Structures are given as C-alpha cells and as structure tokens.
C-alpha cells in the first residue's frame, strides 16, 4: 500500500471505490497462500523474460544463444532460475488448490489450511527435485 487509506478519497471517475478496511484480523495460512499466489504470479511474469530470451536467442543467432545460455548457466543465472522454479511450482500447486476450490473441493476450513501448508511444503521439494534432475540428466557442469 503506497498511501494511507485516509488519504485516498473516493472520487467517482477518478479513483476506484475501496472496500472498508478491517483494522482487526488474524493471520491464517490460507491468507498467506493467497498473497504468495499473487506475488509468485507477478514474479512468474518477470521470469518469462528468461524463458522468452532463451527461446528467442535460439531464433536469432548462435552467438545470442550462447550469451543467453551462458548467463542462465552462470552462478547468478542458476540462482535466478531456482527462484523462478520455486515461484512457478508454488503458483502451480496453489493454483491447483484454487481450481479444485472452484469445483467446490477442499473448501472446508481445516482442509483448506492443510492444502495451503502442502503448497508451501511441496513447492520447495519439487524445485529441489527439478534442479537435482537437471544436474543429473542435463549434465549440469
């Protein structure tokens, strides 16, 4: 939030109407998952630059491809790719929660909390497996 709520007045046609803000709320894991889903969504959009650059450079020239894959294979590149992988895995697993929720599955209070925790646990596990597999199969030097 860039400005305090009291500073933003609702002016029809100029500002968007805002819902009344709650001053008292409790931290829940489903709420955290919802916020993380948005954050990882934005991060994934930025990460698409890496994927598009990788495929785009293969269309351009061998020199461009070597530059891009050289950067992505560097220490910094691998760090960025691991963050991107983690972000995509969370968005994928948590997104599946929402698709099931749309079908009315897993909406119970306890069940929703359990699956939210599962999203936080599964995404790093999947990311580590993916990087382990990339090193084992892709010949990560």
């Amino acid at each position, binding site marked *: 939030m860039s400005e305090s709520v009291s500073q933003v007045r609702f002016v029809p046609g100029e500002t968007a109407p*805002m819902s009344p803000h709650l001053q008292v709320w409790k931290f829940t894991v489903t709420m955290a998952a919802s916020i993380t889903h948005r954050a990882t969504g934005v991060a994934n959009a930025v990460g698409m630059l890496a994927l598009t650059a990788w495929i785009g450079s293969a269309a351009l020239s061998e020199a461009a491809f070597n530059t891009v894959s050289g950067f992505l294979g560097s220490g910094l590149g691998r760090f960025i790719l691991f963050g991107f992988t983690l972000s995509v895995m969370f968005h994928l697993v948590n997104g599946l929660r929402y698709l099931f929720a749309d079908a009315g599955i897993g909406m119970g209070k306890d069940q929703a909390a359990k699956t939210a925790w599962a999203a936080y646990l599964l995404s790093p596990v999947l990311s580590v497996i993916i990087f382990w597999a990339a090193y084992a199969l892709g010949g990560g030097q």
Partner: protein
Amino acid sequence: MASAATKHFIRQRFTAMVQVPLTIFLVIAIITHADASFEEMRAWVAKPWVAALLVAWFLSVPLHMSIGIGDVIDDYLHKQGMRSLTTLLNSGYAFAIGLAGVFSVIAITLIH
C-alpha cells in the same frame, strides 16, 4: 458473455487448466535440455509437437498473466493516471512476450 468480469474469470481459469500440463511438459523439457547446444535446441524446438506446445504456451501465458496482474493493479493502485499507465504497460508486456515467443518458435521451425 455476461460481462467483462465474467469473461476474465473464465479465461483465467481456462488458461490455468491449459497451463497445468503445459508447465509439466516445459519443466521436463528444460531439465533434459539444460545443457543443449544451439543446434540441439533448434532441432528440439522445430519438432512439430514441441513447436505446437510452445506456441500454445506463448498464447496462454500472456493472457493469464495480463489478467492476473490486471487484478493486482485494480486492487492496489487507486489513482486513475497510475492505473491507466500500469494497465497499458501490463498489456504491452504480455503482448511483447507472446509475440516474441510465438515468432521465435515459427522462425526456428521454418528456417531450420
């Protein structure tokens, strides 16, 4: 379609469902092509089924991310000027990613 909101709602879920299998395909593909040379990479992209799935990816993702980021803009940016500017940048970014991705796949497939 009842409204723009309904259209966004359905499109966001449709692209999400499409991207679940596509993401799994792409992750496996990247794992096995992490050390691909220029020629290996082009030969892989040029396979018809790979090219088709990559084009599907680069059509679906920009739509999904522009709707999602559009929701974030609608929720957190309240001033009209800033909203218009970020909405424009959001659409432009999604269009650029989609265009670059689809064009690259077509170029590699046809020139290979």
